């Protein structure tokens, strides 16, 4: 009797879970389907739910007209800024944990920088970039993403470095390692899981940013989210390009979720939950 009841409850939970999965997965399926539909299928009425074949004309169009460079621009700005933010942020986090410069105030100031809405600082930064000649350049976007992600990196790495016992570093110092060697050979390897997870999230933030890219790029370093919005014209909407370009932006994120699930909780909750 008990087992029978449990079986029903499990089945009910499974059905509800599948309904939820359907709700969250279907729009992405729809996007993917549009990216491989032929134009006739995209504009068929009633809509076609399952593409009859794989039509890559949307992707081909992106390569032919050069729009695919937007994905490259996103990749370059997101990767380089991630590397820079991780280096500067890890060093700063290490300094904060071990030497406590400025005490708690410095940490609180740093994390508070993350709460500023981008739109509030977008125009002053735009003016600054105009005067420095950084508008529509890789350097400009990279510096900006680095600066914007640093508070997050420092906050997260601070949490991970706090978990490392200082005695380990002491003995490494006594063994004659330099401070630099202690950081690269003891601290980072000890915190590598957290380091990696933080880097992934830093990359995601830069990869998905829209507002700064919209304000600070014109034609040379347009990133993929800006490019996607460009396909919604006032006269016509380029559905297959929207589908294809969006999928190029989504695919790396699918990879992230598939391979890094266990890191995601802590990264998202800014360390509030130890996932």
């Amino acid at each position, binding site marked *: 009797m008990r087992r029978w009841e449990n079986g029903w409850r499990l089945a009910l939970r499974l059905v509800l879970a599948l309904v939820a*999965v359907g709700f969250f997965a279907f729009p992405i399926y729809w996007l993917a389907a549009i990216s491989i539909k032929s134009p006739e299928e995209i504009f068929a009425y009633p809509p076609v739910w399952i593409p009859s074949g794989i039509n890559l004309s949307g992707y081909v169009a992106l390569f032919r007209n050069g729009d695919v460079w937007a994905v490259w621009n996103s990749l370059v700005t997101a990767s380089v800024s991630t590397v820079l933010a991780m280096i500067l942020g890890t060093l700063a986090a290490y300094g904060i944990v071990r030497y406590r410069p400025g005490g708690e105030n410095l940490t609180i100031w740093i994390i508070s920088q993350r709460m500023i*809405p981008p739109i*509030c600082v977008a*125009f002053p930064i735009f003016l600054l970039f105009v005067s420095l000649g950084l508008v529509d350049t890789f350097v400009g976007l990279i*510096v900006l993403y680095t600066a914007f992600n640093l508070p997050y990196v420092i906050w997260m790495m601070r949490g991970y470095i706090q978990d490392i016992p200082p005695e380990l570093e002491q003995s490494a110092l006594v063994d004659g390692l330099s401070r630099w060697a202690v950081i690269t050979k003891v601290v980072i390897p000890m915190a590598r899981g957290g380091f990696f997870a933080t880097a992934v999230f830093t990359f995601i933030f830069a*990869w998905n940013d829209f507002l700064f890219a919209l304000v600070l790029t014109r034609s040379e370093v347009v990133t*993929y989210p800006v490019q996607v919005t460009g396909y919604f014209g006032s006269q016509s909407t380029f*559905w297959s390009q929207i589908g294809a370009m969006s999928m190029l932006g*989504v695919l790396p994120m699918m990879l992230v979720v598939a391979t890094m699930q266990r890191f995601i909780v802590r990264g998202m909750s800014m360390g509030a*939950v130890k996932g």
Partner: protein
Amino acid sequence: MTARVNELADNTTVLKYALVAPAVFVILLIGLYPFVQLALTSVQNVTMFGADNSFHGAVHYERLLGDERLWSALWNTIWFTAVALPIELVLGYLLALLFLQPLPLRRTLIAIILLPTVISPIVAGATWRLMLDQRFGPVNQLIGWIIGRDVEILWTINPSLVWPAVLVAEVWQWTPFMFLILLAALSNVDREQLEAAEVDGAGAWTVFRKVVLPAIMPVVVIAVLIRGLDLFRVFDVIWTMTQGGPGTRTETISIYAYQMAFREFEISYSAAIAFLVIVLLTIAVLVALRRVEIAR
């Protein structure tokens, strides 16, 4: 030996600041410079017709008070946050309960649910715009099947439907965030306490109120804080779906500030708006922080 210790000590004082300095410098670039610039611009008169850098006092701040479009944008933002946040929280909690105990394919299903949260809000907005297209989108077709006749609902154009449309996209994208964090928090709730409460004959509601809620509260507060701040500055998803339209129906404070700065080139006025937003947010965060200790 003594020399070595001194050397290390000297090194440390330098290190104390040298390690932090580069990061602080880069953050100041977006943390200090824009503020000074905003403060200056907001008391000058910079428009598309030219930059008048003389002191103009609080004229732009006075204009804020009588700007109905601003107050409606602010109201839209607060309303949107106040509606979306509880929905995401409750749906996320229910989902977390669903996935708390063993389930076939649990990890895979969770991974699929997470996807909306890690994609760009621009892509989320674009996806829902395609989903809700009056003719070629599947949503209207589904509704048509249910009510038994074809419909052409103009989700992003009809003023009374545009907010629900945006809300669906927002809830779709961020409920998984709440779900994941609550799932992690719920799995950390002490099993023994739960069982003890059940042995004592406590009802489900009592167990939730006395055992579960206190245990997950710190995490809930931080999740609400993170999402609340994000919702208050919402821009991307609405921009892709409606650009704040029809008219100014879905204009939030971020969209209004963008329009003022980059479309109408009312630079000084947009600086005053930005300042107002920062002040409001600072008050909100301080009030929230007073109730929780965010720093571990």
